[in-house]
């Protein structure tokens, strides 16, 4: 799941200083699950912005709604009427939402209320941790199902480095050394020999070069054209 957190209210308020009426759009996807951009958080943010502006003597009018998912155009189309008379749209989705909104409502000022952080898993209720860096060339099958690209501070593919001690990473005693975890796991599996092989340099071209990455499943491609969002 994509983990995103809200920016400080003061920062968001700064972006909409000159606006009188704004639409806040929550998202029913990942940010609802990670409790930062769902219906409840959208209402709370709207009221926080209104209170702040009232205190400053410059009242703000807010409208709120929640799109099922902001990363799909069909759910954004539904916002047409709500968008019409506002000065700005504040998106509480991950970074995809504001871009889709800006693509569809070309004359509207779109503000992102979020800092999109990482692809994470839930450790406990209210605690998420990064597990994947979306590198596009997965090595999990060599590393006992533990991702060195993200969970090792140096993204080393032939670890552990010389800073690994007592199971912890050199950067912080609270951070597990991913390669200690990998080592322990491969030991249990009787596959420690895997660690003797030299893993060649990674093909990072599948990670972030060459513009946005694309994936197409021809059979299910429908008439709805995602390109229209931009």
């Amino acid at each position, binding site marked *: 799941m994509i983990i995103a957190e809200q920016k400080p209210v003061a920062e968001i308020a700064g972006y909409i200083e000159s606006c009188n009426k704004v639409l806040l759009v929550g998202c029913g996807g990942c940010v609802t699950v990670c409790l930062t951009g769902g219906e409840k958080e959208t209402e709370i943010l709207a009221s926080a912005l209104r209170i702040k502006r009232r205190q400053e003597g410059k009242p703000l009018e807010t409208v709120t709604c929640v799109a099922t998912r902001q990363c799909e155009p069909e759910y954004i189309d539904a916002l047409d009427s709500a968008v019409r008379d506002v000065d700005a749209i504040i998106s509480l989705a991950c970074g995809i939402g504001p871009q889709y909104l800006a693509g569809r409502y070309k004359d509207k000022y779109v503000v992102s209320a979020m800092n999109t952080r990482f692809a994470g898993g839930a450790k406990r209720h209210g605690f998420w941790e990064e597990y994947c860096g979306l590198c596009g060339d997965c090595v999990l099958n060599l590393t006992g199902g533990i991702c060195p690209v993200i969970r090792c501070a140096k*993204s080393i593919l032939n670890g552990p480095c010389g800073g690994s001690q007592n199971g912890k990473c050199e*950067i912080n005693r609270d951070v597990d050394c991913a390669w200690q975890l990998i*080592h322990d796991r491969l030991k249990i599996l009787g596959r420690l020999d895997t660690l*003797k092989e030299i893993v060649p*340099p990674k093909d990072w071209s599948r990670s972030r070069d060459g513009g946005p990455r694309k994936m197409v499943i021809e059979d299910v491609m429908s008439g709805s054209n995602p390109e229209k969002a931009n």
Partner: protein
Amino acid sequence: MESGKSKLKQILKSGRLAVTAEISPPKHASAEMIVQQTRLLGDYVDAANITDCQTAVVRMSSIGAGVHILREGIEPVVQMTCRDRNRIAIQSDLLGAYSLGIRNLLCLSGDHQMFGNHPTAKNVYDVDSIQLIRLVRRMKDEKLFFSGEAFNGQEPRFFVGAVANPFADPFEYRVDRLEKKINAGAEFIQTQTIYDLERFTRFMEMCVARGLHERAYILAGVTPLKSWRAARFLQTSVPGMIVPDDIVRRLKNAENQQEEGKNICLEQIKYIKEEVKGVSGFHIIAISWPEVVPDIVKSSGLYPRPVID
């Protein structure tokens, strides 16, 4: 250097114990300090390691500083970390370094940037230290760039080194990892600073049992301590280092801490020379105490250094 050969390699090959020291380049653009340190080391060492922005603090480039010490007559061992450069920048720097007369290269992953003076920097780690070793060997053995493309001129022919840390975990994997570096093509190995002689001895026994000391020259890292505070700092704040409590205690109780620090270092060298098999030399890392190196080399019977043509 005109011969294009590494003196360090020749000394190691001859079977004599090698002695290297470490120089940290300055945090400014003047070579004065480098020149002073080089003169201080004089003919007491065979080569000097030039750190590459150690602990991720910006300093004069390792290659730039290496050229300064080369001009002063000491052979540099240039460190190349994977933290700050992608494979394009690494190769470009290596071509430049070789063209300037640098012959020894130490490949390492590098300390994480969060320790340094630019903790908000984006790190690179495009390749890791083991991949780097293999690719540098590919340049010299197969005359190929990392990509597999051929050179159309002089290829860099570095004497390739790597580091090993017997004090990191998991201990049982440390010898495997050293072997992996040797398999990747490391010709000499510099160990992390040794204070825990018992663990180092066990590590070397495993290396010797596997014949690793015959496949690469292993230089034992030693660091003379100036004070008990320095010892405590290394003990508590430097990842991957083990400093036994009795060393801290010995320094704390000493009348002259510097003298005691030097004595401890000399005892360690003596112990390693006499009791530990498989060591080909010493790497003296005198952190902010360069003046002590000549004394240590002399007092440990490692002086005079052999002369190579």
